[in-house]
């Protein structure tokens, strides 16, 4: 018994040097669990949208003619570029390049804001045509894109905090988890949009 207690009390101070895979971070694992939940949420929303499409196929064609494909295609590109900048920000802090980190994160902020602006413009176009939350495709469209847009907005606020922390020198090549976790979230929002863009606008 005494021997066991002694074993427990002995701290393991060094990681296993022979291990090849990166160590597991509990923070990152938590984020991945969160993203797993988000997968369920967005799949449910997308399936609901698809159900409406199957049920009212003819009406959907009319609704789709109201959608602004060139604008949304551009918006999709904007989000992909912002995702790329998020990767570059992590690369920058990996080199201890704090200036690069901040510039790339500001780029993410600007492009994310542009994306929201583009979506707001499309929403206003649709609403001016009489398509509202109470209409057959307005309802699933505004809910799905609205929930995604809310995620983008949350990401932008998060980005602001990361920029502020970056400016205060909180990140370095040894401490970059905050940037990395923000990046995971931002890329996930990008993935969701990639799928939404195909389901709503293209297919």
């Amino acid at each position, binding site marked *: 018994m005494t021997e066991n207690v002694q074993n427990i009390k002995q701290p393991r101070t060094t*990681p296993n040097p022979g291990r090849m*895979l*990166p*160590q*597991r*971070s*509990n*923070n*990152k*694992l938590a984020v*991945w*669990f969160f*993203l*797993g939940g*988000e*997968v*369920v949420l967005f*799949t*449910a929303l997308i*399936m609901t949208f698809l*159900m409406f499409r199957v*049920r*009212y196929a*003819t*009406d959907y064609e009319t*609704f789709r003619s109201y959608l602004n*494909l060139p604008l949304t*295609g551009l918006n999709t590109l904007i989000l*992909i*570029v912002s*995702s*790329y900048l*998020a*990767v570059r920000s992590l*690369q920058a*802090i*990996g*080199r201890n390049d704090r200036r690069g980190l901040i510039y790339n994160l500001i780029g993410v902020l600007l492009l994310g804001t542009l994306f929201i602006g583009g979506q707001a413009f499309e929403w206003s176009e649709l609403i001016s045509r*009489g*398509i*509202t939350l109470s*209409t*057959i495709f*307005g309802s699933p469209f505004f809910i799905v894109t609205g929930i995604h847009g809310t995620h983008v907005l949350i990401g932008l606020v998060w980005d602001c905090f990361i920029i502020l922390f970056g400016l205060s020198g909180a990140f370095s*090549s*040894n401490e*970059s*988890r905050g940037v*990395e976790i923000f*990046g*995971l979230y931002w*890329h*996930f929002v990008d*993935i969701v949009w*990639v*799928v939404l*863009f*195909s389901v709503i606008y*293209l*297919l």
Partner: protein
Amino acid sequence: MAQETTAPVEQQTEWQGYSIIFAILAIFTIFEVATAYLSGLPVALRTGLLVVLAIIKAVLVLLYFMRLRFDNRLFALPFAFGAVLVVPLILIIGLTTTPPIPTAAANSLSVDGNIVDVTLRSYIIDLSTDHVPSGQVTFHITNQATDMMHEFIVIKTDKPSDQLPTNEIGHVKEEAINIIDSREDIFFGTTVNMQLNLKPGHYVFICNLPEHYQAGMNVGFTVDGTPDAEATSAATAESTSEATIESTSEATSEVTATATP
């Protein structure tokens, strides 16, 4: 206890292929948008192509931008678990999705006399015929608009359908016209029936929601026959109407109403 350390960032981010991944994502996106304008592409091929491109894009972001490929594989598990959880959801939705609502022709309402199929769209009223013999007429009114409510008003008038008296905001002045019967608030995707006993003459059907009349929701209609022959039949305004309203949930309710002159 698991040690909370990550591999040094330099090791994780030293891979230099992110620009290539970004370029692939951008090119795929441009190609996807371009397919919408390629009219010659078969639908099945286009759909398959778009699904494959979307999956590739999502996987590329997941593997490289989210760096699952370089990171601990354990992180993929919760994500995959979420994806597995939605399978029953997809099955439930897939199995319970019913085919489109049947049209008015499938309506179980028993009808006498002539049937006119009326289709309301934004902003047009389509009729299966523009004239019927006098007597019992049943209108199957279907709102096929994508997302808009409409109404169906039957007016007895000699004026052309687009020359009814309107007020300053484009509404037809309902007090200045002879309304035989109306169905208001016909929700999109629903079918309503109206049964009328119509005298010979010229009628106009309109939707009098704001701007709908002026946008084109008006159409003329003729009831054939000689007025004398109808003298013995019921007065025009004595229209008995029955409405069967199908909601999207397919709960069918029957509403019987007698129109007042």
